């Protein structure tokens, strides 16, 4: 190590900040959409999901990065799947023990973190070729980028669909008396897709570089 980089050098910090906007895993890299849509009816499960993904993604990135020179490339998918699956089992057991109601709500989607494309995508694209500390930062950054979209989507769906935020009523009673009603459609699956579509639209009209050619 001749020119040792500081632990939080500018390049390293970019690994965390890039996924938040211009390299966002959901809206730009198109990874991990499945769970992003299904867990966003309320904010609380969305936040818990974000932390679960962060735990799995950061740790699996580090582990794979440590093992990157020993894994034969032919069987790397299986090795990655086994590591990720073991981490997900830990998360699932923890959720069942400490957040039972949320774990019921998330149901199969905790298990589906295993095949969440964010994880496999980052393992393949980043952890297999980079050092553990960089892989760790990349994991945290991508999980945060994923979480931001989840929280934005669930914020709107919960506010418009149920009139609550984190389970507390925020829309005053007088609104309801004046004839306002919660939009039940926001809770149903199709609106998650349309909300993400609108987020992508807004993001791309702000950042012209992301516009697709065709």
């Amino acid at each position, binding site marked *: 190590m001749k020119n040792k980089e500081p632990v939080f050098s500018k390049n390293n910090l970019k690994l965390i900040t890039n996924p938040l906007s211009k390299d966002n895993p959901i*809206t730009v890299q*198109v*990874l*991990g*959409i*499945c*769970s992003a*849509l*299904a867990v966003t009816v309320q904010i609380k499960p969305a936040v818990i999901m974000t932390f679960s993904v962060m735990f799995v993604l950061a740790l699996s990135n580090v582990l794979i990065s440590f093992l990157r020179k020993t894994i034969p490339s032919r069987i790397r*998918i*299986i090795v990655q*799947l*086994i590591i990720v*699956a*073991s981490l*997900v*089992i830990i998360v*699932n*057991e923890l959720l069942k023990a400490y957040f039972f109601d949320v774990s019921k709500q998330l*149901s*199969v989607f905790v*298990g*589906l973190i*295993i*095949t*969440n*494309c964010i994880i*496999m995508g980052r393992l393949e694209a980043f952890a297999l070729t980079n050092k553990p500390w960089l892989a760790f930062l990349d994991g945290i950054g991508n999980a945060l980028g994923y979480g931001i979209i989840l929280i934005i989507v669930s914020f709107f769906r919960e506010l418009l669909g149920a009139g609550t935020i984190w389970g507390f009523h925020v829309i005053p009673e007088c609104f309801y008396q004046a004839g306002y009603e919660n939009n039940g459609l926001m809770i*149903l*699956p*199709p*609106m*998650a*897709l*349309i909300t*993400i*579509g*609108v987020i*992508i*639209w*807004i*993001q*791309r*009209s702000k950042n*012209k570089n992301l*516009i*697709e*050619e*065709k």
Partner: protein
Amino acid sequence: MEHLFNIFVKSIFVDNLIFSTFLGMCSYLAVSKTVKTATGLGIAVVFVLTITVPVNYLLENYILKQGALSWIDSSFKDVDLSFLSFIMFIAVIASMVQLVEMIIEKYSPTLYNQLGIFLPLIAVNCAILGGSLFMQQKQFNTISEATVYGFGSGIGWLFAIITLAAIREKLTYSNIPAPLKGLGITFIVTGLMALAFMGFMGIKL
């Protein structure tokens, strides 16, 4: 028989993997640019789901579930291995995909050429693992129910991806606002299709 048909129709229209649970969304968005490739991936998904769901059903009921091991000896009836189900299911899926790939390569080279590039992708497709996890949650009584469920879910997925691909082929000729092109409009189209599919909710034969 009627009961099985009910499961089949329900898994295609009511519990459609894409429109009601968003499973397999990543490859659904990535591979739906043309109808031809979409059909290839869709058929591969049907194939693998029809095989893995019943295999995982057997695994769940004879090894993993609480009391499932009592066929060996009655002293095993308190053993509960269900916390292992994620790792077992994913291992079964990954090895099944490998096996199916080898068998197809040997016996049907034409089919292999069509499905070839899609099969390895399928091991990490959430629709496949999701199919098994929903099978576990729904607690089917017989293996034929599980098989029909797997097949039906696959057909539902195939149906969804072909429809989207057909719409996207048409969309290339329409005038869409630049920031909405590509991914954005695809999301909104899928959302509208999901709205239409909600019309099937509550159907029972």
